[in-house]
């Protein structure tokens, strides 16, 4: 979080006095309809069904599970992330639409937890993607999960939960850590730099040595030509 606080936030004077009211309203609405991506990365996922279903009932807070990353708001990292999973988690995170929030559940996301000695799990989640909130515990009870998510709602409401912007502003840092773990030619299908330009979130840390390395290895994605079933012909040799 300390890194987040160092980022200078430029307050723009807006001409329209209603603009701020509108922003507040948007934030309020956002914090009351949250969709959690249904991706069980580790053992903490076992406490999510009780938290979602009748007994603890997260739905009364407007929080629901969602199966596809494109429509989800929250990426819950429920426990240890093995390095193989971490790649998929990063791909998933980049596919989610902004604003998006990352919540690290279980001690393993904070410091590796009881798997600190394991060669297969990543130790610090916030090296690879910005984390809004950690819920520590092994594993946190459903009450803790819900209270943590309420805290996230408060932070969204007050506008503090803006880690997704941090990913664009400091992309070079995160990419560097990813490259260190996955190898130099690591790349994802999502073009974060263009997105950062689009959102006007280019910061000092967006570009750097690691993004230059990425450009070296990046292969442009081509669209596949569209084929319809009835037009299929055998390729002519």
């Amino acid at each position: 979080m300390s890194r987040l606080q160092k980022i200078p936030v430029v307050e723009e004077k807006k001409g329209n006095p209603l603009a701020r009211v509108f922003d507040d309203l948007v934030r309020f609405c956002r914090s009351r309809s949250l969709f959690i991506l249904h991706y069980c990365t580790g053992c903490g996922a076992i406490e999510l069904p009780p938290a979602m279903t009748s007994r603890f009932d997260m739905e009364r807070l407007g929080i629901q599970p969602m199966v596809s990353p494109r429509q989800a708001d929250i990426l819950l990292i429920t426990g240890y992330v093995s390095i193989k999973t971490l790649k998929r988690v990063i791909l998933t995170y980049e596919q989610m639409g902004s604003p998006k929030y990352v919540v690290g559940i279980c001690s393993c996301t904070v410091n590796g937890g009881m798997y600190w000695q394991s060669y297969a799990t990543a130790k610090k989640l916030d090296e690879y993607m910005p984390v809004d909130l950690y819920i520590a515990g092994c594993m946190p009870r459903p009450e803790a999960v819900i209270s943590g998510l309420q805290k996230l709602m408060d932070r969204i409401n007050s506008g503090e939960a803006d880690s997704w912007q941090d990913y664009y502003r400091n992309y070079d840092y995160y990419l560097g850590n990813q490259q260190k773990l996955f190898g130099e030619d690591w790349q994802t299908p999502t073009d974060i730099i263009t997105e950062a330009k689009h959102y006007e979130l280019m910061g000092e840390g967006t570009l750097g040595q690691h993004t230059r390395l990425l450009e070296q290895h990046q292969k442009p994605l081509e669209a596949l030509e569209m084929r319809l079933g009835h037009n299929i012909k055998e390729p002519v040799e």
Partner: protein
Amino acid sequence: MRPENYEAQRQPPSNEYELNFGPNHPGIEGNYALKVKLHGDIVLEAKADGGYLHRGFEKLMEQRLWIQNIALVPRICVPDPSPMELCYSMAVEELCGLKVPQRAQWLRVMQLELSRIAAHLFTFGGHAATTGMYSTMYWGVADRDLLLDLFEEFTGGRVYSIYNIPGGVRRELPEGFLQRLTETLDYIESRLPDYDNLFFKNQVFVKRAKGTGVMSREQALEWGVTGPNLRATGLAFDVRRDDPYLVYDQLAFDIPVEESGDAWARTLVRRQELMESIRILRQVVEILPDIHGPIRAPIPNPLAWNVPAGETYTRVESSKGELCYYVVSNGGPKPYRVHVRGPSSMHAVQVLEKMSVGSRIEDIAQTMFSLDACPPEVDR
């Protein structure tokens, strides 16, 4: 290095295609993936892709003290953690020649059967959700929570109880616990007719599950299938009865068997096992007050504990099947080698791969949940 499913591959035009099924998919149990080759929606070939939950348990256990591993082992199977602790404790006891007091053995049986009921309720929930019946999931998870409350009361932990230590159990029962246990059992038993109407007799489920994922008894034996999945093909084998541990030889219980070997039979076996577990727990409640004595055998200082050299293979019936630990000690303060044989290492890999072939893609989830495959056991 990039994720292997990143680049779309150009293929010659064909009606066959490949699909990555998981790891982020609601039809997959846990964090697991299948690569399937399809023709239309018929599966031609399926390949399991595990390792998403790999933590290197076996390596970790070689690096920690014998007593530290007790906290580590329940994490190997998240929905049904208690047999893991028991199996490891039994292995260490066998190596040290520790004799577990009677009362501890009965308490262990109680913990195991409670855990079995909780795991089965959770499986029903997940299985029902794959057929779109979310009410069963809500009920199953909510009723499982009552058992978790009991766990919390007598072990201190909701999910991972860490109740067993080599030599016995950690805690004595709280006052009035058996009374509350009886009440919970009565409640769960009274709920079963509701479950029957909602799920087990529901035509939506019956028509979907009958004839899905069929295996014959010969196939099951050939593929190394164990547990409820084996009993669903008509072979009455249960480690609790045929290779007894703890005090199971003093308990009366039946081994439910179904003949047809499909997803429906497997679910029905679990449904009947729930009743058997309740029956066992009732016997425990009756007998436990008459058994007095210590709850654990004295062990040396656990932080400087050299277990005598040797090797042992212990087997336990978990809710998923045959769970085994092969533990080797070289006389040192840490295990020399621990090999975990989770029942799902067969069910989730080879059996699932073979049973998916020829089925329709939407039945893969049905097959996987009815096999009760638990990916963390495979990946370890």
